[in-house]
């Protein structure tokens, strides 16, 4: 690969790279606001100015006070170039740390804060704000403008998800470009000129497509905030776990940002992966964090005369074991339902359980019924792991999985005499599934749903934020995710719960650790390891 020099260091670059992109690939940050690896280049913030050493530098006329002569004299300064615009050429020598470059960073930063409200104490971006970071890193002077700053629109509702603060905006146009170029909906633009300009909506429109939260995410400052996340948490109290979105079969890489003391997930945000989601996620995916806390099943449940009663998770497990033992004894065939919402690890142990503990079983796959896919990220299949569940079932000899409709038919015909179902998701509603309760139904679920609601026994299990696991996306890419928060007391991952259920039935499923399960997963699929840090 060809190389160039940045701050004296040899760096490789790819043909067509700009200076900033080549540096970014190498993990070196040149300060920037308007540049974003996934958006077009506007080179307008001027924060990334660097000195390119080539031949005779172009000098610009400026003016200096000469105290000896007691008059102004001509001076010059080096012409700098924006690192986001300048293409790298072989052997190019670039400095982002020369005195002229440093001076430019300092003055651009000063200009940016000139009319900024600096209301960090009430700004949600504080702690992850480029203005704060670069003020510390690059600004050299205290505030030199003491007069009233320019005032602009504040707390403008851009749509159901986003609020705009014109005074905090640095006019980098990333939000405009994201909507134009990625979401393909040019709903944002700029109005007015000079230092009274601001971002605005297209007439008659709201920011209301399926990728609105990304506008907040690409905003380098606190000008765009998410109505969902506003005023909820200070980011420095949050921890991040690398994970994979469970919204659909695309499997966007993401971080789960959670409050460690409260063990509460506060938001999801994209984790860059050029091969899967680049830098983006959809709104529904980002909002799927709500499932980690809303409609959460935290107790066991058994059906008794007069309805369902709450029991401890272990009591529910004992009841489940009893029902399965009875079914086995009566020679009834157990219908085993895999889940396209659960990890391959969970489904793997379920497959093993079906084959080795229950013996002959009929197998099915429960999944949500699909949503609007698009050509951007969203897959029409709104389940994260249909491919993974199907693959581990096949590995255990279950070449094809029936639908839940088939399960209904098999229960009706009497060929299935009991049901063991993983997951809360199904295509059918509770009313449609009600006919299943003709036979004992054991549900292992983290959340409320149609299947848990008609169960004879409900054993609570961990959500995907509470476990390590693997999802295999629509392209067959197996992607691991890491646990963020702990499951509530007494609740374990589905695979651990199944291993316990096996023990309760007097059998052993030979997995002590997650690694044991992972080793047993189908070897053919490529595995992507999540990056360890936020």
């Amino acid at each position: 690969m060809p190389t160039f020099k940045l701050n004296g260091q040899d760096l490789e670059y790819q043909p067509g790279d700009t200076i900033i992109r080549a540096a970014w690939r190498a993990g070196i940050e040149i300060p920037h606001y308007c540049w974003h690896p996934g958006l077009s280049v506007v080179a307008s913030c001027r924060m990334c100015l660097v000195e390119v050493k080539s031949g005779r530098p172009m000098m610009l006329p400026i003016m200096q006070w000469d105290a000896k002569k007691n008059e102004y004299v001509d001076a010059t300064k080096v012409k700098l170039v924006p690192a986001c615009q300048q293409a790298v050429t072989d052997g190019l020598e670039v400095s982002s740390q020369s005195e002229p470059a440093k001076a430019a960073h300092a003055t651009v930063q000063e200009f940016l804060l000139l009319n900024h409200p600096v209301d960090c104490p009430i700004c949600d971006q504080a702690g992850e704000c480029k203005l704060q970071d670069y003020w510390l890193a690059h600004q050299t002077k205290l505030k030199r403008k003491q007069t009233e700053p320019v005032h602009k629109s504040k707390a403008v509702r851009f749509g159901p998800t986003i609020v705009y603060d014109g005074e905090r905006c640095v006019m980098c146009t990333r939000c405009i470009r994201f909507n134009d170029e990625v979401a393909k909906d040019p709903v944002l633009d700029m109005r007015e000129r000079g230092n009274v300009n601001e971002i605005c909506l297209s007439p008659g429109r709201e920011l209301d497509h399926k990728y609105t939260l990304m506008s907040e995410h690409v905003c380098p400052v606190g000008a765009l905030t998410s109505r969902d996340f506003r005023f909820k948490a200070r980011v420095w109290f949050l921890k991040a776990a690398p994970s994979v979105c469970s919204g659909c079969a695309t499997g966007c890489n993401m971080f789960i940002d959670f409050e460690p003391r409260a063990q509460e997930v506060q938001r999801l945000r994209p984790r860059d992966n050029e091969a899967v989601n680049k830098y983006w996620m959809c709104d529904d995916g980002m909002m799927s964090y709500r499932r980690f806390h809303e409609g959460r099943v935290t107790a066991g449940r058994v059906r008794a005369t007069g309805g369902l009663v709450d029991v401890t998770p272990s009591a529910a497990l004992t009841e489940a074991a009893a029902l399965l033992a009875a079914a086995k004894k009566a020679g009834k065939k157990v219908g085993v339902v895999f889940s396209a919402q659960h990890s391959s690890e969970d489904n793997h142990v379920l497959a093993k359980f079906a084959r080795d503990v229950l013996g002959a079983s009929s197998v099915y796959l429960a999944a949500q019924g699909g949503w609007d896919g698009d050509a951007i990220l969203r897959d029409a299949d709104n389940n994260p792991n249909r491919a993974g569940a199907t693959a581990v079932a096949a590995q255990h000899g279950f070449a094809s999985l029936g639908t839940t409709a088939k399960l209904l038919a098999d229960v009706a015909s009497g060929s299935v005499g009991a049901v063991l179902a993983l997951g809360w998701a199904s295509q059918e509603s509770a009313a449609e599934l009600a006919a299943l309760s003709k036979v004992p139904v054991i549900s292992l679920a983290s959340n409320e749903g149609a299947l848990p609601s008609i169960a004879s026994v409900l054993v609570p299990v961990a959500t995907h934020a509470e476990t390590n696991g693997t999802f295999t996306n629509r392209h067959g890419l197996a992607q691991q995710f890491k646990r963020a928060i702990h499951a509530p007391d007494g609740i374990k991952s589905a695979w651990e719960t199944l291993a316990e259920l096996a023990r309760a039935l007097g059998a052993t499923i030979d997995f002590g650790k997650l690694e044991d399960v992972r080793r047993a997963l189908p070897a053919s699929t490529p595995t992507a390891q999540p990056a360890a840090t936020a």
Partner: protein
Amino acid sequence: MSTIDTTCLLTDRYALADSFTYAVAEKAGAYATARKVLTGMQPDAIKAEVKAANIRGRGGAGFPAGVKWGFLPPPDPNKPVYLVINADEGEPGTFKDRTIMEKDPHRLLEGCIIAMRAIGAHTTYIYVRGELVTSIKRLEQGIRDLRAKGVLGKRPFGIDHAMDIHVHPGGGAYICGEETSLLNSLEGYRGEPRLKPPFPAVSGAFGMPTIVNNVETIASVPDILKLGGAAWSALSRLPNDGGTRLYGVSGHVKNPHVFEGPVGLTLREMIDLCGGMLDASRPLKGVIPGGSSTPVLRPDDLVHAPDAAHPLHAWHGKSHLDVPMGVDTMRNLGTMLGTCCAIVMDSSVNMVEAARNLMRFYHHESCGQCTPCREGTGWLAEICDRIADGHATEADVELLVDVSNNMMGNTICALADGTAMPMLAFVRKFRGEFLAAAREGGVKNGRLDQAVVPLLGGRAA
């Protein structure tokens, strides 16, 4: 008084009654050159004449038009070439292009026809400042007449080179005069300058190769072809800067107006041609030579070029106002020729107020993309306001210099430089006045309102 040669080429039809009509213009010679050129010359030969004419762009930057035309890529049937005429004329103090469009629109249209032939374009867009209603009306009428005569159409003068011209009223912002901003505005986008490269000659209007030229640049083309490039070039008093051009003078002279003269008149001659200073009791104080973005000159500043190799050596020891106005001479003087429309200021003007007036303009007109320009123009205006209104200290004068220095060269287009340069010149050449205002609680004499009222003929401002 003076024996200044004021050759009339470009303006030779200005004085005719109804000079803007096709009938009058045609009778006085319009389109004779176009006919000759289109029927008798190959495009390369036309380009060679324009190159030989040494015509420097009349829009402000002074780039040689013949060289610019040479930047077009080789002809490609999938890439139509456009000619775009910059008639946005927004630079404060500049009002010359308007006279062409109002008094002799057919000279511009004839220039467009010859230029289209030379660069292989079939379409011209004339982007006219929206406020110039008469210019727009007269150009549109001219185009209708040309279409009716078949001069615009499939076969102008019988040759196989279809041509049409469209007038596009401007978007109402100074920045739309910057050529790439103009192209954005023409295409229906926000008038914001584009990143360069690519330059318009490679990717301009609608992504196609485009030549953007000023009104006067193109209106000079018929004369260049009529006289021949070399002969036309020789009309100038300066080398590498050919021909005659329009001079404009506004401000404190007896007869502010636009007139034609050879390239290389001095500012002093320009003032003389306008009848001298308005009021003998108020001597000349400063001249902004070519539109508000060009640094101000003082009559008492003398050229210091003792070295014989210095390009201004010939004027060593003379006043800045006695140096001939050319693209290169003005650059060597530390200012710019710009649009060659001077603003003359007498002793009634307070330079803090003059600077504040201009900084307000740039603050209002910055498109706001680039941080240094968006924030810098506003900051300079704010500091000037404070100095003029008496809310400043002497340190604020140095702040003007520092902010201007920090803006220089750090932006996408030249508006920021065109703000910083005149600001620096005002402080450099009239520092005492800025310090006095800062010290003495603001501008006492020559406040903007006082200076303007007499010019309005005593009417209340």
